[in-house]
């Protein structure tokens, strides 16, 4: 930095030697920025764009499933839609949104001037649009986009995959590099740049959950990279990792994939746990109940997440001892998860509650995520899983943990911190409308899926038997409602950026933390001198 500074001043003498200057002008501000706030903003915008794209695909799926029979798309394209919807939502919408929140909030929460590795930060963001450009371009290739589900089980994705599979693999590799660099940055920032006095057990929970999430990312993204590399070899270089006729094993794919895949689902939920642990105390005007147990619970969940992967594979024929081990381990996860829910409820108990949009989303998060947790507990019971597995019951389960879990967590965070980001209060009436329409639409879309699954409807089918018709129609109506409502969020955010009531440095009565000690909007550079934490 210093060298660059000297060089710059030699070239342009008039340029002030002031490190507190504002952002550069024009497009180069965004291309070349190393500012954590700019990069956080870009992550959030990118994530929302992907959310709309993945959502559009969900609308195609629900439109086709509105009635029995094939009406709108053919099965080939339907499979491409389910696959791309899953991939885009997981890797393009949810994960980058949390990285965006981490970029914005972690330095502000720990009193750091920026992320520890700002140039790498820029690179990890700009890799993402490249990866998704490649992934989305497969839709226009001969043979179509990947059509084997977001879990891309071999040999459907290898021997029987479309020609575009190799592009898909390349895109996953790039996303993986981006995620790993993002995670390294988060860890380096949290471990090195905390304000004096902020010991680990004084860190805000969002910082704690992100620290643990980052370790999960570093542990499992290379495993994902490994499994797609094995696919690449099988497809293009004649190996037989997953081909039984060459001595390989299709089930090996599933073991490796889910060793990545199960921690991945916690990667998508732990940062939301953290954010909600700030929002509920703020709007209850009461400190978080059981801070230490919250930290330990997140740690326990993260550790357990490495020994439960085969619960996704109860029907592949693993030996009974394995079956029992994975059943018990999976059931155990309910304990720390339960502790977290109990703590949130205890925080609300005897508080002084108000229900602004962040709190509405956070309360809905607790209730609906718990429902998703209950169905998860049911799925953990291995014998019962033989009936639930690969049906709409599973689809209902993971949408209950991901939509009101991850996505409501992101909305709650966005409304909570928008005043800090923009310097304006958002329109509360519109935000509440956004919440209620999302809440009703989401439940209408996903609750009937429990019934469909229990009645015997398999997932990933473009057409279904007549007894599933009624609930599918209800579900589609709910999905259209949920989908359309999200445009309202876009409107609210744009409105908030453009203007609105001026936000105070501390716009919420009960909120605590260093981020509220800086003015709203947060200046381009904050905490040039670290604050003192008592």
């Amino acid at each position, binding site marked *: 930095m210093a060298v660059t500074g000297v060089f710059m001043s030699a070239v342009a003498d008039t340029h002030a030697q002031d490190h507190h200057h504002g952002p550069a002008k024009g497009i180069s501000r965004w291309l070349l920025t190393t500012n954590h706030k700019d990069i956080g903003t870009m992550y959030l915008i990118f994530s929302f764009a992907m959310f709309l794209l993945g959502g559009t695909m969900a609308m195609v799926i629900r439109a086709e499933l509105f009635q029995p029979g094939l009406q709108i798309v053919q099965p080939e394209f339907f499979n491409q839609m389910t696959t791309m919807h899953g991939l885009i939502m997981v890797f393009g919408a949810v994960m980058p949104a949390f990285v965006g929140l981490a970029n914005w909030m972690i330095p502000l929460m720990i009193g750091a001037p920026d992320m520890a590795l700002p140039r790498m930060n820029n690179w990890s963001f700009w890799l993402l649009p490249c990866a998704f450009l490649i992934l989305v371009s497969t839709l226009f290739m001969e043979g179509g986009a990947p059509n084997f589900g977001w879990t891309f089980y071999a040999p459907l994705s290898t021997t029987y995959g479309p020609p575009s599979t190799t592009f898909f693999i390349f895109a996953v590799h790039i996303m993986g590099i981006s995620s790993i660099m993002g995670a390294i940055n988060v860890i380096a920032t949290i471990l090195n740049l905390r304000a004096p006095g902020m010991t680990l057990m004084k860190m805000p929970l969002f910082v704690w959950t992100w620290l643990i999430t980052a370790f999960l990312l570093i542990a499992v993204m290379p495993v994902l990279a490994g499994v797609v590399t094995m696919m690449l070899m099988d497809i293009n270089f004649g190996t037989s990792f997953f081909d039984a006729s060459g001595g390989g094993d299709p089930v090996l794919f599933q073991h490796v994939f889910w060793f990545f895949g199960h921690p991945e689902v916690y990667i998508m939920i732990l940062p939301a746990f953290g954010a909600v642990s700030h929002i509920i105390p703020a709007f209850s005007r009461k400190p978080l109940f059981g801070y230490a147990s919250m930290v330990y619970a997140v740690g326990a969940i993260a550790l357990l997440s490495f020994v439960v992967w085969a619960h996704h594979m109860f029907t592949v024929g693993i030996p009974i001892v394995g079956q029992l081990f994975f059943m018990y381990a999976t059931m155990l996860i309910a304990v720390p998860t339960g502790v977290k829910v109990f703590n949130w409820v205890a925080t609300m108990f005897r508080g002084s509650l108000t229900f602004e949009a962040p709190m509405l989303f956070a309360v809905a998060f607790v209730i609906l995520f718990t429902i998703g947790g209950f169905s998860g507990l049911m799925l953990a019971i291995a014998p019962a899983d033989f009936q639930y*597995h690969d049906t709409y019951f599973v689809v209902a389960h993971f949408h209950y943990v991901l939509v009101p879990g991850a996505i409501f967590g992101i909305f709650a965070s966005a409304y909570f911190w928008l005043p800090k980001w923009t310097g304006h209060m958002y329109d509360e009436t519109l935000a509440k409308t956004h919440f209620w329409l999302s809440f009703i639409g989401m439940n209408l879309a996903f609750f009937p899926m429990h019934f469909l699954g229990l009645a015997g409807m398999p997932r990933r089918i473009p057409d279904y038997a007549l007894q599933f018709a009624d609930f599918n129609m209800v579900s589609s109506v709910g999905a259209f409602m949920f989908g359309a409502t999200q445009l309202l969020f876009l409107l609210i955010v744009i409105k908030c950026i453009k203007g609105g009531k001026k936000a105070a440095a501390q716009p919420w009565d009960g909120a605590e933390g260093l981020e509220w000690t800086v003015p709203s909007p947060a200046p381009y550079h904050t905490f040039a001198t670290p604050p003192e934490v008592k």
Partner: protein
Amino acid sequence: MRVHAQRAGALLGGLMFPAWSMADWTLNMTPGVTGTSNEIFSLHMTILWICVVIGVVVFGVMFWSIFAHRKSQGAKPANFHENTLVEILWTIIPFVILVVMAIPATATLVDMYDTTESEVDIKVTGYQWKWQYEYINEDFGYFSNLSTPREQIENRQAKGENYLLEVDNPLVIPVGKKVRFLLTANDVIHSWWVPDFGVKKDAIPGFINETWTRVDKPGIYRGQCTELCGKDHGFMPVVVEAVPEEEYNAWVAEKKEAAERERQLTQKDWTMAELMERGEKAYQTACAACHQPDGSGAPPAFPALKGSPIATQDMAAHIDIVVNGKAGTSMQAFGNQLSEVDLAAVITYERNAWGNNTGEMVTPKEIFDYKNQQ
């Protein structure tokens, strides 16, 4: 508050009641017709009620807080934020509940894994997109294809009662006997599921999985493939007919006889017209899903046959690709899937249908010789 609760109850009841009175709005899992499916059902209901009770308690406290501890109601916040005793309690109590739950689940699982002492053994092979059933001890087998007409799927005809859950040849099993299934697949992973039996197991290429059932009530039971297996994953149902033992024995005898007749047909002298007629039928069940009923295909994955070099030029190449498949593509080896008669008929049909008027035909005997030379 009581008034509110009553109103909410009445509203909820009003919303739910019509749903209960309509048969199509199935809410719950089927208890099924086997010991396994009944045990699974009772596990499912137990864990469901446990969840409901926990939910009522947790959400009860939460809704009470939302109702009574609102700032607008003048609530002043308390300041407690730690209590080691309750943390320990709400760690241990759920743990105990889980242990209680794990015991019956373990017992059921052990029972489900016991495939010994079976009386009938059936090999189930998943194909894109059909099932093959082979009666290992009886020396015959057959394919089971979706029988719902294309017209119903494409909404040109009213949909039948068992839309997408009907097949040409159902699996037939005797009631009251332990039937063991050996599952594998020919191409990608499939999964064989009959909800009424509580049986679901993946069919994996290159591996053999085992599972079993014992059905006591005669009837027709329907299920589907539950592992995404490509384009027509939603169109490969499982239909099982459980029949009394005598009826089953008679059916087996008849099947064995039919298999013998089929073998003799190979020796018959076939005319072009006969082959074309049989070929059209065989083409519609075995080939049309990919190459389309009019031979136009769905390139690039599924090439057109109409006017293609394979179907109009060298006959030997045509026989080779149908019998042996094409490695690295979706084109399967049909040599073991179809009889010599059907192979000859399909190849003849493909060479003469849709304007591929080569005028050439191949007889079942020639196919038989071709396969023997390999």
